[in-house]
């Protein structure tokens, strides 16, 4: 369970998160939508402790993320994250990309890590690219590899930050399919996305962010058919 309680966060003078409260249950898929600069990405990087927060707290499975005593490297093993920019490690093959963290962080043996890596890469449809270098992959393939890389750590939670927005339109579909598959398998997920159809189909709940505030959260039918907050209405009108 991820519990976010009254989180405030500023970059210098700019307050980016202005008191966010959100609880994500095990097995739930929460989609976050909202305008550019509303703080969506920042929230995700706070959840796995890549960014510090100012006040409030974030608790993941009973561990307070920003407590001094927390071993962040350990915590991050259970929270996978995939970013908008493809972050392939260019000097490693696809399989090596995926097995690096299991081997070095979890201390797995080579054979074991490769078995897991292959399984995850097949899972995302890259079973035939194991020894290819990332520069030979399309953007969509790179994103799927990044997903497999995160999955290879057997995370309990997955965070996705606009994983399709840097892709060519024809590559978006394959990545969204992968996300859908994960959701169906019961993964707990927070997805920041601009793909409204995806949000509507896959989410248990949809949250709308506006200028550092979670303006509205609810079932997808409610948010998309009957938005309460005027900003949500405006936003949905603009993206349709």
């Amino acid at each position, binding site marked *: 369970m991820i519990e976010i309680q009254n989180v405030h966060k500023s970059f210098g003078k700019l307050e980016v998160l202005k008191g966010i409260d959100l609880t994500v249950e095990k097995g739930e898929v929460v989609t976050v939508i909202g305008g550019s600069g509303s703080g969506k990405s920042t929230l995700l990087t706070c959840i796995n402790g*890549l960014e510090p927060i100012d006040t409030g707290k974030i608790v993941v499975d009973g561990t307070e993320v920003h407590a001094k005593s927390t071993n962040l490297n350990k915590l991050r093993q259970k929270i996978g994250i995939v970013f908008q920019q493809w972050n392939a490690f260019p000097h490693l093959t696809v399989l090596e990309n995926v097995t690096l963290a299991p081997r070095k962080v979890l201390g797995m043996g080579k054979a074991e890590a490769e078995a897991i890596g292959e399984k995850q890469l097949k899972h995302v449809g890259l079973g035939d690219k194991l020894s290819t270098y990332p520069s030979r992959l399309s953007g969509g393939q790179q994103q799927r590899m990044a997903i497999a*890389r995160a999955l290879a750590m057997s995370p309990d939670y997955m965070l996705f930050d606009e994983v399709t927005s840097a892709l060519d339109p024809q590559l978006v579909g394959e990545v969204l399919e992968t996300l859908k598959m994960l959701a169906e398998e019961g993964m707990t997920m927070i997805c920041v996305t601009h793909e409204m159809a995806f949000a509507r189909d896959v989410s248990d709940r949809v949250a709308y962010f506006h200028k550092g505030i979670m303006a509205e959260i609810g079932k997808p039918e409610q948010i998309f058919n009957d938005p309460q907050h005027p900003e949500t209405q405006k936003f949905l009108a603009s993206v349709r």
Partner: protein
Amino acid sequence: MFDTALSAADLIFLAKGAGMTIIVTAISVAIGTVLGILFGVIRVQLGAVLAAPLTFFLDIFRSVPLLIQLVLANAFMGMVLHLRFSGFTIACMVLSLYTAAYCAEIVRGGIGAVPATTRRAARSLGMSWWQDMRYIVAPLATRVALPSWIGLALGVMKDSALVYVVQVTELLKSTQILITRLQEPLFLLMICGAFYFIISFPLARLGGYLEKRWSND
């Protein structure tokens, strides 16, 4: 072609000088690179303001002629601190720091060339700072830095010609000694220049080649 009084013993003498050039260079580049990586990482880690003293210290080695660095180090170690270091030791110490000063810049550039997002991805997989450095930053930064580093190593070899001021008889000094005896400056200088060229040129080419190859992918 040349009518020369150069004897086999003289050639051995020259070879010894060349050996000294290579030894001084190898030691200095080895130590300097280790220090340079250390300083470079510290500078990146601390940020511009906190690392300012280190930056200033390293900057000195890039802003004062090597000849003066050698003379001063020599004078300081001996006259002021009364440490009995050999000229060879002084030469290696100064050249190591000289190398480190340039190497730190190269390392900084190399680390800077690794996209922040890639490092973020590594950390988000649960890798520690050290693992990120070891498995992601080091291999990627090396590709960027290696060509410049080769250039630096060759530069140090050429600059090692100045260690004669602390009584280290390297190649150019050996050549000058032979010129004293044999009075064939042009011929001897050609041999000396050819030696530097033969070592430096292929490695410089290799650096250029690597730079081209790695900047393409």
